[in-house]
């Protein structure tokens, strides 16, 4: 029960993060200015120990990356409920990126081993709901891989931008 | 008012005529499922299937409805000064208040309703609205619900007589009839070649300006009368509701509730297909500085319906939620409004995932206290009544 509550609370953060990325929130790299389509909104769900730190490394290293992504920090990818990604889509995110420690490097030993099974199923189900594969990605980025983070985000955002903002449909 | 006649092939034209002034809602079949839907020219109205899956209540009492919109914004200090000045020293710290910009909220109440005509509902559906009118209508000193009533007043109900009631129909037991007039603005009755039409209210009359409506012949009027009689005799009344209120009260702690609820899965299907059930929930949503307050249907089978913040739940046990629905319809509501909260459509029987039969429940629990036993009641964790508690203290 207690565990369930915890799960839900961080979910609210994830949920809350999605709508906060409102149109015109901040200028974004690589998208059309006024008159064009609105910039895409992407939710990144990252684990505290690796990918969040990796994003930090990228920032400290001043690696240029698109600003369309809003990060939600979770303790571990094992804590990520598939609902977080679905909720983000429901609330209008154009893409969802999940990232954590490489297998074997989990701060809690095995969280990401559980997670990758969930994510694989999630990915397949999201596609089943008619959301193109390009809009959902999960990967591993370690704390030292600032450059890899830059690459992942840049590629992912480029993929989503190619599709443009989602039109309001089921989920 | 004279009985009119509408030939069957003129029905779409008639609906088209009505649709010029109002949205028309009618039972329409899609993917094999008949539901009330907004009608548009070209859509066939399905009247052969007796009852649409759900009653049309959702078009008056929306399943979810936003009724407040609000927005927060920062108020400039200068404005506060003016405002605070009029209050004098009452606030205590008007001066400090004035110096700091702070958040203020603006609230707008929404209440939209536009004219609509519901065609093809059955007299039991129409009666459901009458029973809900009591609850939402400020009746007998209760509060007046502006949302429901605005829409209700803008709605005209054109009912169709049930030619061929189902075995699950029991409207006559509740005091209704397959050609009932209660809540009906105009009644259509299927006869050879078309429909006879009778308006009972001004609202009903107002929809009948259609040029192809003729006066019904005596033969047509006679046929319609015969259809009504036939239909009424077809409705089985397998139980009596005499003294139902007292009997439910006497049987409140009856063991039979435990037997009857067993196959209930505590979903809300029966309440959501019901033309009478009206309970709702309220929720708030806020995105950044703007949000809304809305209400949605809720039902007494929802385990969280009565759960309090402390975790205490007066109806924690499934059987007590089950008992509440029937007690509400045949005891609690009648206590307040002198009428039953059921119109006998039988939808709850047909759509219940386990086909729980409200007639069986009424037969058992509505009969004089033959089944009061309550032996296993203590096992279900409700607090004993004060009188029993006093006994308990002595032992």
């Amino acid at each position: 029960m207690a565990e369930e509550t915890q799960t839900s609370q961080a979910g609210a953060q994830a949920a809350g993060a999605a709508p906060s990325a409102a149109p015109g929130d901040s200028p974004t790299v690589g998208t059309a200015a006024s008159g064009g389509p609105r910039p895409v909104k992407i939710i990144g769900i990252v684990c505290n120990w690796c990918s969040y730190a990796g994003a930090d490394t990228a920032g400290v290293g001043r690696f240029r990356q698109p600003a369309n992504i809003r990060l939600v920090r979770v303790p571990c990818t094992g804590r990520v409920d598939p609902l977080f990604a679905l909720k983000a889509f429901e609330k209008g995110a154009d893409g969802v990126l999940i990232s954590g420690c490489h297998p074997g490097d989990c701060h809690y030993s095995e969280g990401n081993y559980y997670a990758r099974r969930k994510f694989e199923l999630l990915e397949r189900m999201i596609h089943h709901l008619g959301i193109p594969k390009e809009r959902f990605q999960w990967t591993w980025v370690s704390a030292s891989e600032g450059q890899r983070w830059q690459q992942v985000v840049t590629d992912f955002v480029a993929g989503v931008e190619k599709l443009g903002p989602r039109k309001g449909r089921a989920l | 008012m004279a009985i009119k006649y509408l030939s069957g092939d003129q029905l779409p034209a008639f609906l088209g005529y009505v649709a010029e002034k109002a949205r028309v809602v009618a039972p329409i079949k899609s993917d094999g499922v008949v539901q009330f839907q907004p009608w548009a020219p070209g859509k066939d109205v399905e009247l052969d299937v007796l009852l649409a899956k759900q009653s049309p209540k959702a078009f008056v009492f929306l399943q979810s409805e936003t009724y407040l919109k609000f927005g927060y914004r920062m108020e400039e200090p200068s404005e506060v000064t003016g405002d605070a000045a009029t209050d004098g020293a009452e606030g205590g710290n008007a001066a400090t208040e004035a110096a700091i910009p702070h958040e203020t909220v603006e609230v707008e109440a929404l209440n939209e309703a536009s004219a609509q005509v519901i065609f093809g509902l059955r007299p039991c559906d129409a009666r459901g609205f009458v029973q809900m009118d009591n609850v939402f209508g400020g009746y007998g000193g209760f509060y007046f619900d502006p949302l429901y009533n605005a829409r209700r007043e803008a709605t005209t109900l054109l009912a169709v007589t049930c030619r061929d009631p189902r075995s699950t129909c029991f409207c006559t037991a509740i005091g209704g009839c397959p050609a009932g007039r209660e809540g009906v603005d105009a009644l259509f009755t299927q006869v050879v070649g078309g429909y006879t039409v009778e308006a009972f209210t001004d609202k009903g009359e107002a929809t009948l300006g259609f040029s192809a409506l003729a006066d019904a012949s005596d033969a047509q009027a006679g046929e319609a009368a015969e259809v009504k009689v036939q239909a009424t005799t077809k409705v089985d009344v397998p139980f009596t509701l005499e003294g139902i209120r007292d009997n439910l009260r006497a049987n409140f702690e009856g063991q039979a509730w435990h037997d009857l609820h067993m196959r209930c899965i505590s979903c809300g299907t029966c309440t959501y297909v019901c033309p009478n059930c009206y309970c709702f929930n309220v929720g708030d949503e806020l995105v950044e500085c703007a949000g809304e307050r809305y209400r949605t249907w809720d039902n007494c089978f929802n385990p969280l319906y009565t759960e309090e913040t402390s975790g205490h739940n007066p109806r924690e046990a499934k059987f007590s939620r089950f008992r509440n629905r029937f007690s509400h319809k045949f005891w609690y509501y009648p206590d307040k409004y002198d009428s039953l909260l059921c119109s006998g459509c039988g939808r709850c029987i047909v759509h219940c995932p386990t086909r729980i039969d409200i007639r069986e429940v009424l037969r058992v629990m509505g009969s004089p206290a033959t089944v009061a036993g309550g032996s296993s009641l203590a096992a279900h964790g409700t607090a004993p009544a004060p009188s029993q508690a006093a006994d308990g203290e002595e032992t």
Partner: protein
Amino acid sequence: MAGNGKTRLTSADVVAGASTARAGKLGGNPYLPEIATVIKIIEETPNIKTFRMRFDDPAVRADFSFLPGQVGQLGIFGVGESTFAITSRPSEKGFIQFSVMKAGEVTRALHNLSEGDKVGIRAPMGCGFPVDAWKGKKILYVMGGIGSAALKATIEYTLEHRADYEGISILYGATAPQNFTYQYDIEDWQKRDDIDLVLTIDRECDGWQCDVGLVPHVLERMNPDPANTIAITCGPPIMIKFALMSFQKLGFTDEQTFTTLEKRMKCGIGICGRCNVGPKYVCVDGPVFSLAELKELPDEL
């Protein structure tokens, strides 16, 4: 009860855009809260705060009145509403006050409010205590923990009209000394000689001068005379249950004994359905019930 009245309203009777606080019960939109500003926050105990609010609309502020024992819906736009007893004095104009224990979603958000913040209030709701019918009687308040909030307005009212009542006794229990609400009032009450005040805590503790013991036990030790007395109790459900038993033991009749109930509520106006105890809605038929009335109801508290 209300079922036999034949008043039927239509939308034409409703004042557009007005709340019930502004337009009166039947003429207003009962779902539209009046906006109010928090003007004072008093920290009563570690998890109870009292909020004093001023309606933003001067007309509402001037006209607002309520009966002791009535409740109101206090809410934050974007979070939700909950029902609380009004704890200000009915005679005090210009503000309305609620005491809130931190427990769930809404109360947690309320506890995060600061002075100057905006809230929405729908009040008053429900029936108050029949204080007029009690004139000339002795009043005995038995309360525990946050239950004091539900009786606060009534205590204040009877103290204000002290001459109308033969006697006033208050038995107030809390788990520990720091958990008494309204400590500033308690000090006043202790000074007055026209109130019998008994304070009790559950377990002994250093520096505690008053009684020790659970409220129902202390009540039985007090052994109040039921003659010409009205007993009113409010507190945690378990305390109410045993206090009611004690009243019976002491010879109080069901008609002499009153309590005020709490239920999960949404609409607060007798429509949404969830706060029923049998045929009665706590929000409109209550929250005040005599024990005689309660015994008429099914046991679903």
